[in-house]
């Protein structure tokens, strides 16, 4: 009887042909098992890396955590496993997957802050060991502390910006997008505009995420300030770029929040295509952003309609068979869910970030912008 031979190259080609996200992840899960069974170190690590990458950039980033843990365990147990990678890619692959495992924790309030700090200490040791990734380390600190202490977050951001780029650094346009976000966070619009200038002018090559990130930062800022004209401008631009994926749920939330005032038909379209991705999502920041937008949308609709007819998934807690929903019920439900998630974040972080963030949306809503 013939024996089935493991051929990583062929399996990789099959993976390449699959669409990003769920499809690729399901295949990768199977292939990881095959690579483990035959003990092929390169593919054991490489496909875990690919799985984490798919989770981070195309699905729920939290799903990168278990494979990052397995990758780390394999390398810690037998560091020579990494030698299957090209020499210049070893450190980067290792640090990158560890980063992909740590980053989602900022958006999972059930993980205690001490746990995150412990992981960051370990990450810092890796940065020292491999002498790369310091800029990324500061960026991660700034990103987490945004929800804890804005000033401290900005200080980390400044360290990040001053540290030289290396192989682990994000794309330049993404980095500038975060700089826009940070500048808007401390109320420095002029600096934000300066940071975004090269992105707007197209002078920087950028990844798919970059334009969405900076547009999202401007959009939320405009909405929080109650500037609907500017918000519409950014919402239209962002709406063109967002995709119907889990990745873009936060952007869906902000776009819905703006379209609630300007184009409820579009907002409802965004709502129905986004809500199906919410169930079972571990990234609570995405859920919070989406629920906040949904709350504003249905609160606005309450002023015009009593009910709406929608096709929602059966898993939605207020699901009705006839698809008719009371706008007021929906508004209240989404508000209480967003508030709940916000409270859990604030409790974990020991701050009021989410409370204040929701209050800002409330203030805009009361004024109806």
């Amino acid at each position: 009887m013939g024996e089935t031979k493991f051929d990583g190259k062929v399996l990789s080609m099959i993976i390449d042909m699959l669409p990003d996200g769920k499809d690729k992840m399901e295949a990768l899960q199977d292939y990881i098992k095959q690579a483990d069974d035959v003990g092929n170190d390169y593919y054991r690590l490489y496909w875990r890396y690919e799985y984490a990458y798919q989770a981070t950039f195309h699905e729920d980033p939290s799903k990168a955590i278990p494979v990052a843990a397995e990758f780390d365990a394999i390398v810690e147990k037998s560091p020579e496993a990494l030698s299957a990678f090209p020499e210049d890619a070893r450190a980067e692959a290792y640090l990158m997957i560890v980063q992909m495992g740590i980053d989602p924790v900022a958006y999972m309030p059930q993980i205690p802050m001490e746990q995150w700090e412990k992981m960051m200490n370990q990450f810092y040791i890796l940065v020292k060991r491999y002498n790369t990734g310091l800029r990324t380390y500061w960026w991660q600190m700034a990103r987490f502390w945004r929800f804890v202490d804005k000033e401290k977050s900005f200080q980390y951001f400044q360290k990040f910006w001053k540290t030289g780029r290396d192989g682990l650094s994000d794309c330049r346009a993404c980095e500038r997008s975060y700089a826009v976000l940070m500048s808007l966070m401390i109320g420095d619009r002029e600096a934000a505009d300066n940071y975004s200038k090269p992105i707007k002018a197209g002078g920087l090559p950028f990844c798919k995420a970059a334009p969405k990130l900076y547009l999202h930062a401007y959009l939320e800022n405009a909405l929080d300030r109650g500037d609907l004209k500017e918000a519409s401008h950014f919402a239209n631009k962002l709406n063109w770029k967002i995709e119907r994926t889990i990745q873009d749920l936060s952007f869906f939330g902000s776009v819905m929040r703006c379209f609630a005032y300007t184009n409820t038909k579009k907002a409802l379209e965004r709502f129905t295509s986004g809500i199906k991705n919410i169930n079972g999502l571990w990234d609570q920041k995405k859920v919070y952003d989406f629920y906040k937008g949904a709350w504003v949308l249905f609160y606005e609709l309450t002023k015009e309609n009593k009910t709406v007819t929608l096709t929602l998934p059966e898993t939605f807690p207020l699901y009705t068979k006839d698809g008719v929903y009371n706008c007021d019920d929906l508004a209240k439900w989404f508000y209480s869910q967003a508030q709940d998630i916000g409270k859990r974040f604030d409790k974990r972080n020991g701050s009021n970030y989410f409370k204040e963030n929701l209050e800002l949306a409330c203030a805009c809503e009361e004024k109806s912008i």
Partner: protein
Amino acid sequence: MKQFTQKGEEEIDERYNFQVNLGGMLDILSNHLYKSPDVFIRELLQNGADAITLRRKKQLGWDGGNIVIKIQSGHRIEFKDNGAGLNEEEIHHFLAVIGQSSKTQLENGQIPEDYIGRFGIGLLSCFMVSSSIVVYTKSVDGSPAYVWTGFPDGTYTLEQYSIVDNIEIGTTIILEAKHGTEYYFNPDKVSELVRYYGLALPVPVFISGIPECLNNVLHNFSGISRHQLLSFGEWLFNENFLDAIPVQTKHLSGVAYILPYHTDSSVKKGHRIYLKHMLLTEEGSTLLPSWAFFLRCFLNTKNLRPVASREDFYEDEELEMARIEFEEAIRFGLEKIAEDEPERLQQIINIHVNAIKSMAIWDDKLFNLFIDYLPFETSEGTLSGAALKKYSEAAWVSCVPRFKQLKPIFMAQGRLLICTGYTSDEELINKFVNKFLLPFSPLGEESMELVLEELTPFEKKQTEFLEQIANNAIKDFDCKAEIRHFLPSDLPVLYTISDDVQFMRQLQSAMDVNSNIFSGTLSSLIESVEERPLATLYLNLNSPLIKILSKIKNSSLILSVSRVLYIQALLAGGHQLHGNELKMMNKELLNLVGYSLTTL
């Protein structure tokens, strides 16, 4: 020197000019702004075409204009246009000041639409391939001819050109190949680059000594036969395209070709998108929608703005209008194919199903057009939307492994199960069901009763003991046991798992391997789940094996068999076994061997 402090704190009474290091600027241009040194051809074409446009404006009635390129292979290029030329003042102003473009004289506050360049940095790109730039020029205003020579250290010389008699109006730029750039001074390469960058230019471009124009293409593609469009596409892209859709709108003019093979969004695009007849980008992601990856476009754009590198479009309202126009043109083209040749549409769908599905989600009109042709994986094989409409009942599952697990059950029961685990399928099926009011529904965990028949009260009583022991046997593995009837009867157990349980299994597997960095986080995650989601192991009372098991009263035997069946179901579903499951399997297999030996 005066200290400059934050604005407002001290009045600044002295101003200084920045010193520009031209060598540094060149490094920025070649390493950061331009993708390749070959853009010098683009910049020269652009300047030549703009000079001809200017002469047409200055010298009313003159409608000549051409560009001729003379090449000494590997050494030298003479790039000659018969445009407006420059007088002395213009030479100092435009050739010697970086950022000053002769085209930045605005009309009504705008750069005139018929000029291509706008940044005044184009000529610098020539220093990427040549150590000097020599410009012979004679202005249309009748002033003397001049020769200007620029060097990369930022210096230049200017002399009046004395042999005036034979000098024609226009400009000739001479470049000498720098060491390592000889490749760009080869006639074939130059021809290729002219066609690449300047194919859509309205000014004819010739290689000296060759009568055929390098860029002889149409400027309006509406009304051209399909055959001609496809021939042009084959010549331009070297592909035998499936079909061609002409695009003729306010902002766009060209053709969208349908690729003859399957591709996906991550593949390099390779469009030819021109701005004012000069190649701007091959990527096109700012102009074209994400689903356009099944197309190769040749498009000339108007009234749009470039970014400084001239490698993409500037985001503005005009660009948004152009995007809408493109979508409408493609929709119209596909509608026409559907109307004229539905079998060709089917062929297109067969090859580009993923792109078409994602288009159909976004666009209701395209959804109506395509849905009957789109294929879906079902328990009855691949069925089209048209075939699905004929079913009076169906269920769908959004997880591929679960579909595979349930498929034989649905087949045995003669019921239809649709797999919506692939990209776009769930949204499409939802849309499909709502539009045609079909009695299809998603098969959630809670809908398993549709597949699994409940036991009679008598059977329930008869199997109570088995269910209780089986439950105890597998509860430590976050799984519960339930007894049902289902087909096929030779399938003794069925393991079903939700995404939540799947993720919990992954977390548990990762815990087993003990990572320094993540162990604490993994256990926090597992502990944070208040109510652990449970998988379900269904025992099939139609199966002879389970029937026998339900009659046995030996609890330790039932326990061992239940655990082995649990492992068998996991393996059949392609799930990875955890360490504790492997241990348990070894133990229970030995128990069963021991039991069978003792009963001999």
